[in-house]
């Protein structure tokens, strides 16, 4: 999320409507505004540091991440700056190689969760039918099962394949995203410009994409940030529990688990990957918080507003 590039793709239509250009700027302005607050700058800095380390790491690793180089839990030395892991592999090389897979999986899971959740939430609010509401409610309950348990259930039969982990985590985000965007859409769909679009004979799908979605950019940005943070937490957690790529491949979550028996001998094999995961999640979450403060306001984040909506307290106030 932090690394969203501003550049217009060359494939974009040559003359976009003035309105959509303004909206695109609004979105960038919000990110830029967030990055200029203290919190936003700290968050962006932390997240970018870890992302750069994970992406560029494999180029700078001194050894192969899977080669046995030193003693099991060997102390740090000039040749092995962070010492050896439980088999005697170089911890530094494994740290530099073990981050990008986590980032890639988390980004993919976030994309799945946002797309599925936005589609469900926006259409549930705009189309509104009663039966649709009942279906949504049931789906909420089934899917808003503890995310980790949901993922473990799916993994139990097929086995820990990375694509399956991404799919399971992505789908488990969808209900929460849908809940937030449903609440936001309910406010928007009462507006006059929606009525105008409907009277002009615009089809519902088009109204949702052209008129509603552009106005959901602020809650959407905050949701992307939150879900990215949670994706990293859950995917690293699954790796910690032993569910990730096949064994020799390096992964920060897996490293923490396999090296913790040697915590007294070479603590760096545990501390460094744990610290990097912590910096990454603190970074993304802090930047998201800054975006929420800039776009939505200080006191309440969208998840809490949606919750109040659901209990019916906001209307009653």
């Amino acid at each position, binding site marked *: 999320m932090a690394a969203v590039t501003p550049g217009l793709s060359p494939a974009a239509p040559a003359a976009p409507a003035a309105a959509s250009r303004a909206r695109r700027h609004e979105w960038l302005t919000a990110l830029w505004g967030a990055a200029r607050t203290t919190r936003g700058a700290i968050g962006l800095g932390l997240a970018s540091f870890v992302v750069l380390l994970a992406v560029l790491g494999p180029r700078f690793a001194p050894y192969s991440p899977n080669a046995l180089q030193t003693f099991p839990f060997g102390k740090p030395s000039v040749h092995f700056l962070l010492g050896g892991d439980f088999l005697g592999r170089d911890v530094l090389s494994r740290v530099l190689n073990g981050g990008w897979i986590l980032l890639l999986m988390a980004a993919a899971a976030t994309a799945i969760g946002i797309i599925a959740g936005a589609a469900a939430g926006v259409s549930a609010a705009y189309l509104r039918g009663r039966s649709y509401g009942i279906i949504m409610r049931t789906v909420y309950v089934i899917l808003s099962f503890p995310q980790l348990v949901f993922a473990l259930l799916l993994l139990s*039969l097929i086995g820990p394949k990375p694509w399956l982990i991404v799919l399971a985590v992505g789908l488990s985000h969808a209900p929460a995203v849908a809940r937030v965007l449903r609440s936001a859409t309910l406010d928007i769909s009462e507006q006059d410009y929606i009525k105008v679009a409907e009277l002009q004979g615009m089809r519902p799908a088009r109204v949702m994409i052209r008129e509603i979605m552009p106005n959901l950019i602020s809650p959407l940005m905050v949701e992307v940030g939150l879900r990215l943070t949670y994706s990293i937490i859950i995917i690293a957690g699954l790796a910690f529990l032993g569910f990730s790529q096949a064994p020799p491949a390096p992964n920060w979550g897996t490293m923490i688990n396999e090296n913790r028996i040697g915590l007294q001998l070479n603590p760096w094999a545990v501390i460094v990957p744990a610290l990097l995961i912590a910096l990454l999640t603190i970074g993304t979450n802090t930047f998201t918080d800054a975006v929420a403060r800039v776009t939505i306001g200080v006191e309440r984040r969208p998840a*809490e507003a949606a919750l109040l909506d659901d209990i019916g307290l906001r209307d009653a106030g």
Partner: protein
Amino acid sequence: MAAPATQAEGPTGEKPSCYRPLDGRSPMAVAAPAAAPRAVSRRAARPILDLVSRRILFGIITLFAVSVVVFLATQVLPGNAAAAALGRNATPASLRALERQMHLNRGVAAQYWSWLSGLLTGRLGNSLANGLPVWGFVSGRLVNSAVLVFVTGAIGSAAGVILGAIAALRRDGHFDHITSVVALAATSLPEFVIAIALIIVFSTLVTHLLPAVSLLPPGTYAWDQPELLILPVATLVIVIVPYIMRMMRAAMIEALESDYVEMARLKGVPERQVVLRHALPNAIAPTIQVIGLNFLYLAGGVVVVEYVYNFPGIGQGLVFAVDNRDIPTIQLIVVVLAAFYVFMNILTDVIAVLATPRRRIAR
């Protein structure tokens, strides 16, 4: 909005046409209570009972749906559960024997029925990992996890409510700023990172005050050695407190700025009473929902934390079962977690209504 409702209400007690007694969530129904308390049907005259019965019905439907999903996901969907359980050691003979044991040679509906009736009558089958009854493996762990969840929930809720209320009362003061930054960092951290940090500080590198693993001898329960609970509980409390605190702070600020608090102040009610009698009860209602959500989170959060500390609960049991592809155990644990989930959902809804004065009135 309320005025026409009062006029429409006739001596016959007929309900106004715009009023929908079944839909407690429409703004109409929420705004109506003060105006038309007597005119409504008998059914809506007891909002709590009505809500509870509707919620229980919905809960049963949900549990049924969950049982179908769990069953389909584990036993039917891709390939064959028996083959998955045996893995590479499968021979045609052992595969057929296991298929017969798991009733995989019958139709899907028949399989589901025999599984569900077994679940309801307590015939839960045997573990595929060691052949022992599943219930024996799960029951002791269930007690330990329950202790962990409820001790954590009690400490975390109390701490969150108190910290949130203080932060709201000292809004924009030092306490508010510091807790908000710490809370933001704490909500960002994965459970296992917090757990590892606590282990490093309290039981290995820095000090040796507490045990790093919470191994319990078989046959003993969590309360037999309370010191083993300290680190797992501390980890989970650190995870849940920030959410409860933030919600409490937001709700308390809203309550403190409301008209009724202003009214109480203008009447000359002492500030202490304004906070305790007027603001606090109204701020707690939305907070209870968040506390409920955090109990739901704990149903999943125990998995990683129990695994880190080797705490013998159902979360650790689930990880073992998934590792061994022990399908009967996975099914039982997931259904137990689902039942807990549905129960907590009903409970938090009902408590939130009881705690909100304006929703307690018959409508």
